[in-house]
């Protein structure tokens, strides 16, 4: 039984110091879900980030140094994201952390950033918890608007439908869906006291059968619905709700604040998309009229980079996250996280969808959401957003 020797061998092996890192690149750790249902979004975000890094490096890098992206699969699990974040810091000596997708991952990684005094930018996590006063610290920053904005902009859309009196909600049963619906209900009650909330349904995340929820909701005869179902769940929901006559019953008056206005869901659903509903998107991708030149160029580069026929609406978040960071580094003139964290406060930077600015108090950008009606357009085999309207955060913040 010489096992003990093997055991010592393993311990000895772990004593060999990690290979000394090449010091001349700026290392960015990027944990993102690359497997499981959340990879539907994680992968395009990472591709956007990779494209940003390659563009910046092609033009000489930042402060004369090249960027290096260290992507890791967080499996959409908070516990894995935390482990990876720490590994990236301790083993790979990353200078910054960017990434994480879900409302569970980001707050968890934020505590690691705080503990290690490393700037962490969360591109897409929406939970208000991430930057609530109790959890805010100098190193955490967020690009996306939070669930309050999601719920309130959705409420503003529905409040504009004057003949609507009976409103229902359907959202996934976890923090993200619950918070957005709470924000929606609070806002619509103030904006339209005559509206009554007649039904609330909470399917679980990853629900494979929405029929009972759809039937139950239709039985309450709402005139309009606020929906926060997104991603693969929305595809399933729409495919099951259509033949049940759900969208016809509400006359397509649904506002979905789960970013199902982008190409991702539209492409998957094709002609099964419930044409006529309203939704939002970080980036509508296809912009039938008045498309800004910068956006058009960005989408063309993205399609060439990913070799895909249609671009994803989520790549913008990865792309912008890298530019947010590098602008911060440039302003600070250093990769020291304390200096970069200070530089990011109040910093404005350009993105293909316009200028964004980090709020000095909340550490969030002023990013709004593009809202519009999803319509059939003969140029495309799927739904596109008609006249994307940018709802800035201004009127909807606390």
């Amino acid at each position, binding site marked *: *039984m*010489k*096992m*003990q020797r*093997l*055991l*010592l061998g*393993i*311990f000895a*092996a*772990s*004593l060999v*110091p*990690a290979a000394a890192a090449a010091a001349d690149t700026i290392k960015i750790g990027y944990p993102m879900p*690359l*497997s499981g249902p959340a990879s539907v979004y994680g992968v395009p975000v990472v591709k956007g980030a990779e494209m940003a890094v390659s563009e910046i490096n092609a033009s000489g890098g930042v402060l004369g140094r090249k960027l290096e992206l260290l*992507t*890791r*699969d967080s499996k959409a*699990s*908070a*516990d*894995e994201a*935390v*482990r*990876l974040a*720490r*590994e990236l810091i*301790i*083993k*790979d000596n990353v200078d910054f952390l960017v990434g994480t997708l879900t*409302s*569970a991952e980001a*707050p*968890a990684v*934020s*505590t*690691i950033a705080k*503990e290690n005094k490393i700037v962490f930018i969360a591109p897409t996590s929406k*939970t208000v*918890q991430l930057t609530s006063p109790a959890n805010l610290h100098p190193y955490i920053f967020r690009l996306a608007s939070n669930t309050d904005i999601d719920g309130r902009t959705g409420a503003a859309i529905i409040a504009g439908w004057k003949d609507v009196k009976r409103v229902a909600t359907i959202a996934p049963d*976890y*923090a993200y869906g619950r918070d957005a619906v709470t924000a929606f209900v609070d806002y619509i009650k103030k904006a339209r006291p005559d509206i009554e909330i007649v039904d609330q349904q909470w399917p679980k995340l990853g629900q494979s059968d929405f029929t009972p929820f759809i039937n139950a909701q239709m039985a309450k005869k709402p005139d309009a619905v606020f929906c926060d179902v997104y991603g693969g769940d929305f595809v399933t929901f729409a495919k099951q709700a259509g033949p049940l006559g759900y969208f016809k019953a509400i006359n397509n008056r649904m506002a979905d604040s789960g970013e199902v206005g982008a190409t991702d869901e539209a492409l998957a659903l094709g002609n099964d998309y419930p044409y006529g509903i309203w939704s939002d998107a970080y980036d509508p991708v296809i912009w039938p009229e008045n498309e800004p030149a910068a956006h058009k160029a960005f989408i063309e580069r993205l399609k060439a980079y990913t070799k895909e026929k249609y671009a994803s609406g989520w790549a913008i978040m990865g792309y912008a996250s890298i530019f947010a960071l590098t602008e911060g580094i440039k302003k600070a003139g250093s990769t020291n996280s304390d200096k970069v964290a200070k530089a990011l406060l109040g910093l404005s930077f350009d993105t293909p969808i316009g200028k964004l600015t980090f709020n000095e108090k909340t550490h969030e950008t002023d990013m709004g959401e593009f809202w519009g009606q999803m319509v059939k357009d003969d140029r495309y085999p799927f739904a596109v957003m008609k006249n994307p309207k940018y709802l800035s955060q201004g009127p909807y913040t606390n």
Partner: protein
Amino acid sequence: MMKKSAPALVRRIPWVLVVFVAALTIPWVGSRYDTFLATQIAISALFAMSLNLLLGTTGLVSFGHVAYFGIGSYVCGILMKTYAVPFSIALPAAAIGSALGALVFGFFCVRLTKIYFAMLTLAFSQIIWAICYKWNDVTGGDQGIPDVPYPNLDWMSSIPLLGDLRIAQQFYVLTLIVVMLSLAAIQRIIASPFGLMLTTIRENPERAASIGLNVRRYELSAFVIAGGFAGIAGALFGIFNRGVFSDFVYWPKSAEVMIMTILGGIDHFWGPVVGAATLVLLNQEITSYTQYWPFVLGTILLLLLFVFPGGIVGGLTTGLEWLRRKTGRRASA
């Protein structure tokens, strides 16, 4: 002559202590990252070892062992974060909580055999997961409990050498002490008359029953003890990982710890430790090259099942036996 006495000598060395001392040097001779990995390995090793009390010692295939790991981490995490209870109370509370959970669930599980036992353990672990995922007010729901504080380790600062370490490294020392004490206890349990009864049950439950052994009660005891140690591992992991999350309790984690245990070898005391170390080191090595870690893990598992059914330790033991026989034959010829 030398050859004959060597195994006896080897057996007399307190290996738990040797491993402890060797592992203890890591914060001073290794990098920060080595300590990080070693902490992860130590906790995983205890978790795998607790499962092996069921798998290897008693012959019970639990597919829901993660439930007790989860209970331990939530009890400890909630006590320390929400109620600011000191670690010295939170850790035993976690062990007791998990053991109680295992007592309640195990009471029903040990009535079943084989695949039904595995299915019921799975169902119970999913119930625990559903509770952790849903009970927002207490468990934080899907967002879990981030930022679980480190224990107060001020007492270490007065000890020479220890005082200069970072808190993560000091916590490693504490983890190592707890894990090694637990391993020593498990070793004692396995070697005790009680442990021998468990082995008898594994090898021949009918015979065990026929000699008047209350098989169910023994199995339940093993289940409770295993649950308690899993809870200790869970409590340590929640602190090490700086937070407690519902993914801790999701069923694929049970498969993961089972793979660790079998990778090392379920027939040897040190098997789970070797398996945990191998899997943790392999994981961090491979995930820095490719995102297809599940593919690699699945392939390793197939190799294990078809080429080295005894795990690493089993394979090495067989290999050494074979070598010894070969050299022995040559010597005698």
